[in-house]
């Protein structure tokens, strides 16, 4: 078997693995105040969004209400994480951070566009949360790790909810889904760019976040029933859009 010319050299990049950040440092806490706020705001928005989607599909309102309550529980958990580290979450930053996606969701809601609403909340945001939580868990403080591990299991059920609804309606959703993908997926990348510096201080690598998000997102699209070509085209909107 051929071997790599210098695996030792290549593996010098692995220093992040195995060493945890200093959770008590001011640098860490400063970055955490924004990342934690985004997570709290994200869970709050998720709650509100599921309640709103329930108004568009009333026969699902009960199930969506259940999902929404889980999101509130998550929000409380992440608030406790900030308290544990003695950090105040920068909620103003988080609201500004979410405003473009929030605006797109509200617009779709007003127009009664269920597919767009589900894509934004149940697929995009959930897929991003799942991949970000997976990357965060190994570098989190012990308290936050436990909370996040519990949350990530729930988020899969939310992603699954969106997938199942879209899968059942695949015949009629393609056009709106592709359009909503085009308009919203690039926002995710821009949002990630905004917080990449803070995430790095929490030992979360930007390329890992983007790549894992795209893997989760792509997996959802496979589950919904899109073809390989459709998926590649849609995922590329995040990368070159």
């Amino acid at each position, binding site marked *: 078997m051929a*071997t790599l010319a210098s695996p030792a050299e290549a593996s010098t990049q692995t220093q992040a693995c195995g060493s945890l950040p200093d959770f008590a440092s001011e640098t860490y806490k400063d970055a955490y105040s924004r990342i934690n706020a985004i997570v709290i705001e994200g869970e709050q928005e998720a709650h509100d969004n599921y309640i709103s989607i329930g108004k568009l599909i009333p026969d699902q309102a009960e199930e969506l209400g259940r999902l929404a309550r889980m999101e509130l529980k998550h929000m409380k958990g992440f608030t406790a994480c900030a308290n544990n580290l003695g950090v105040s979450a920068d909620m103003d930053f988080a609201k500004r951070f979410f405003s473009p996606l929030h605006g797109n969701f509200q617009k779709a809601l007003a127009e009664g566009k269920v597919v767009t609403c589900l894509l934004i909340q149940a697929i995009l945001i959930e897929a991003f949360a*799942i991949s970000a939580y997976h990357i965060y868990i190994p570098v989190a403080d012990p308290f936050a790790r436990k909370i996040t591990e519990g949350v990530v299991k729930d988020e*899969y059920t939310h992603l699954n909810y969106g997938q199942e609804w879209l899968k059942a309606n695949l015949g009629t959703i393609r056009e709106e889904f592709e359009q909503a993908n085009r308009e919203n997926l690039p926002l995710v990348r821009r949002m990630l760019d905004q917080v990449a510096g803070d995430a790095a201080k929490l030992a979360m690598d930007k390329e890992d976040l983007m790549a894992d998000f795209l893997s989760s997102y792509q997996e959802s699209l496979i589950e919904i029933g899109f073809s390989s070509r459709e998926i590649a085209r849609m995922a590329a909107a995040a990368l070159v859009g």
Partner: protein
Amino acid sequence: MFGLIGHSTSLDQARSKALALGFPEYAEGDFEMWCSAPPQLVERIPVTSLTGKSIEGAYIDSIFVPEMLRRFKTAKRKVLSAMELAQKQGITITALGGFTSIIFEDFKLLKEQQVRATTLDWQRFTTGNTHTAWVICRQVEVNAPGLGIDLRRAKVAVVGATGDIGSAVCRWLHQRTGVEELLLVARQPQPLIDLQTELGTGRILSLEEALPEADVVVWVASLPETLSIDTKNLRSPCLMIDGGYPKNLDSKASGETVHVLKGGIVEFHQDIGWQMMEVAEMEKPQRQMFACFAEAMLLDFEEIHTNFSWGRNNITIENMDLIGEASLRHGFQALGLQAIGLQAIGLQPIDLEAISL
């Protein structure tokens, strides 16, 4: 269902291939974009054996390119994500092609079984090295006599002898082919001594010492770039099997009596309706492929759904027999000097002084 995990040979090639396959968004992407891009199931492939049995497989492009080798985390993620995709697609046996098996081994990915929420099931993957080793041995056995080399009186140098494929080749050439002498070449001394003890034969030499004595040279390693070879001292004729990855020996070769054959390549009995082997720059992309890919097909034909080739130095003569018999039965043939014409496969003159491996 069988799976093949592969990749392009460079970013430029990947971009032009993306365009040709109808993925224009990827063709426009820069290196950073390619680093973040997830693996793609590019095509589904029906294959029919010489026995008439039909199976279906999938080609997964890991969206890895060799330029990413220096980015440990990227390379690692590319391989693991491609494996995760294969498993989630329900593929029963998937071969790790090109650099992906090398990354798996050298970056010790056996420790990385958990990929997000997926626990990789190693039983679903194979390096394909057993078939590759068998094909290389067959290439030696068939082509050396064609050049007038009597293997019973020949010295065969195996460069990279202690690797997974190299050690299997040594075992086979000693026990089955019965070559006069094996010349064992590798970087680390202790594994060489262990191999020599296991074989009960073979002479440990440096590359510089081995080459002038060798009638046949099997290359299954990448070597230091600084290495240079003196062509004047080579045997005449000399058969060289380029079994490493990437295969670049013939492009650097010139001389009159040195014959270079691409090692570990097989040709199927009929065309396969796929597009991806063009990426690997095969002479006949519709029929030729890496033996490791063919191993996944063979295991699926034979319904051996297990990690047939796995870990290092586990390849047995019995398993080489098994996969070799299956290879012939289902219609694969090892690439030979005769099969595609002497000029076409790198029987060009070779100037070993010009080789820097």
